């Protein structure tokens, strides 16, 4: 579904991503991990067509750079690291914005769009929240609202940039479980960037460890997230206990 070959990104004259190749099959969850500044977010933004990239980025077989904005938005839904929360917009209106790629330039939403938005609200248990102000939601509810917006977008690919950083342990788990359910149920392909290595290993079928813009290792979590690799790329002393990455005091 997603194929990257030799992808490099230069921002302000600095090479941020350097010849990255990776692939995510349809229905697969691939997670990018790596220290701050390793290039995870930039790589996600390149896949979303937000920054120009060298090399080949294909989604559903087509080059991202050649797709028009609207077409790209019908294929890829993005959950950004810190989504904007517009003042005094209702949850329903917010989720409806996910239908933008299907609404003509100066047109307005049709019945299909309202139905899709309503279905997304119901799927994420937000139907009763539709009339509430977005700013009145808690962190976890807000994360559900943005997932509902992404779901309303009906894209086959979901990009998540640190989707749970601002949430407590329970909410993190709920959101990730929800993404996993949606992935299975709708056959979504998920490409995410995550800081929590334990969660990364638990949810992704494949983990890609990035360092200095390059892929240092990729594969199943147990093979990639080793004590040695984490020491080398994060400078952290850890133990691995039944798939959990546990920091140890030095």
């Amino acid at each position, binding site marked *: 579904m997603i194929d990257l070959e030799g992808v490099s990104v230069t921002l302000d004259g600095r090479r941020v991503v350097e010849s990255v190749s990776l692939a995510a099959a349809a229905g697969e969850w691939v997670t990018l991990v790596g220290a701050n500044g390793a290039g995870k977010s930039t790589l996600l*933004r390149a896949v*979303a*067509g*937000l920054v120009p990239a060298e090399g080949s980025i294909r989604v559903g077989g087509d080059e991202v750079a050649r797709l028009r*904005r*609207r*077409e*790209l*938005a*019908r294929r*890829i*839904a*993005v959950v*950004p690291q810190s*989504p*904007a*929360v*517009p*003042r*005094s*917009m*209702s*949850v*329903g*209106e917010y*989720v*409806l*914005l*996910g239908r*933008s*790629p299907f*609404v003509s*330039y*100066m*047109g*307005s*939403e049709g*019945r299909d769009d*309202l*139905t899709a*938005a*309503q279905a997304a*609200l119901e799927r994420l248990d937000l139907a009763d929240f*539709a*009339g509430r*102000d977005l700013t009145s939601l808690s962190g976890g509810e807000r994360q559900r609202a943005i997932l509902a917006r992404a779901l309303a*977008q009906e894209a086959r690919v979901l990009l998540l940039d640190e989707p749970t950083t601002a949430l407590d342990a329970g909410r993190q788990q709920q959101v990730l479980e929800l993404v996993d359910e949606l992935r299975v149920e709708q056959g979504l392909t998920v490409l995410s960037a995550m800081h929590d290595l334990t969660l990364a290993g638990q949810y992704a079928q494949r983990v890609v460890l990035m360092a200095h813009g390059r892929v240092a290792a990729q594969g199943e979590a147990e093979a990639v997230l080793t004590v040695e690799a984490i020491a080398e790329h994060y400078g952290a002393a850890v133990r691995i206990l039944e798939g959990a990455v546990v920091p140890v005091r030095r």
Partner: protein
Amino acid sequence: MTAAAIPRPHLGAARSFRPVWLLAAAGFLVGSMLVGVLVGPANLGVLDVIRSLLAHAGVPGVHSGLSQTDETILWQIRAPRVVLGGLVGATLATAGASYQGVFRNPLADPYLLGVAAGAGLGATIAVAYAPSRELLPPAAFAGGAVAVTVTYLLGSAAGRERSGATLVLAGVTVVSFFTAVQTFVQQQHADTLQQVYSWILGSLPSSGWSDVVLLLPWVGVSLAALLLHRRLLDVLSLGEEEAATLGVDVGRVRLVVVVAATVGTAGAVAVSGLIGFVGIVVPHAIRLVVGGSYRLVLPLSVVVGAGFLVLADVVARTVLSPAEVPIGVITAFCGAPFFAVVLRTSRKGFR
């Protein structure tokens, strides 16, 4: 289950309240316009005026009870002025709301961004050098377009995020510069000083229907284009990147909206001079009541903006009667304190 059996989903309270608010706003506008045609030195009876209005609207069986002179006062002096005030108010309010949307800045308005100062310079040059009044709107538009472009470039050069502070500072700079040039041109042509000066303070001319005819195409195009972008302005409220991931060409939307808002503002400035604060007061008052979605804020700005300026003009005409206070003084008098309130509350975050 057939498609028809699916209940129409209702998404959020704001949508279902829409007709109520539009009706309330329309009532406000009709009331303001009625006050506008009724108040004046000559006392026209309420019922007679209403009958004359109905007769002109083509209601069968109704005849105006006004004398020939009163008819002339109503239809050649008051009515055109009320209509003109309505057009100018609708344009300034809607343009203000739109600028706030594309720049994601609660303080953006035709005046702070330098559009009005630029349009003022253009119009002053036209008054000073060109003989024909038809050249006023295009000259005002050219000036306004140059000014808003410079503001935008300055503001974005100063910071990658076109945040509140940089944009407003850029606007202040541009306003000072354009005002300086305008004053220079004005002093050079002292013969037009009086005309230019009264125009700067902002006032609605009592020149019959000719100004309405002059303004109508500019306002019509501008308002239609802006209203068609109300959904896109909601998408833009998510910020550049998120809007792009929803398939919106942010650059194009911003360009079209800024051009449309500038066209309308320039037209309004050309006929009525510099009437400040309408573009801030009206949209923010609306947001306080109905929320921030541009689907509601833009249409309501058209209607409420029109009513607001008509009322302001009534105050301008009566407060020092028989003399007239420039209407810009009235709007600034109510607008500046309101602006201070917006400034305070907007710290809580517009985004």
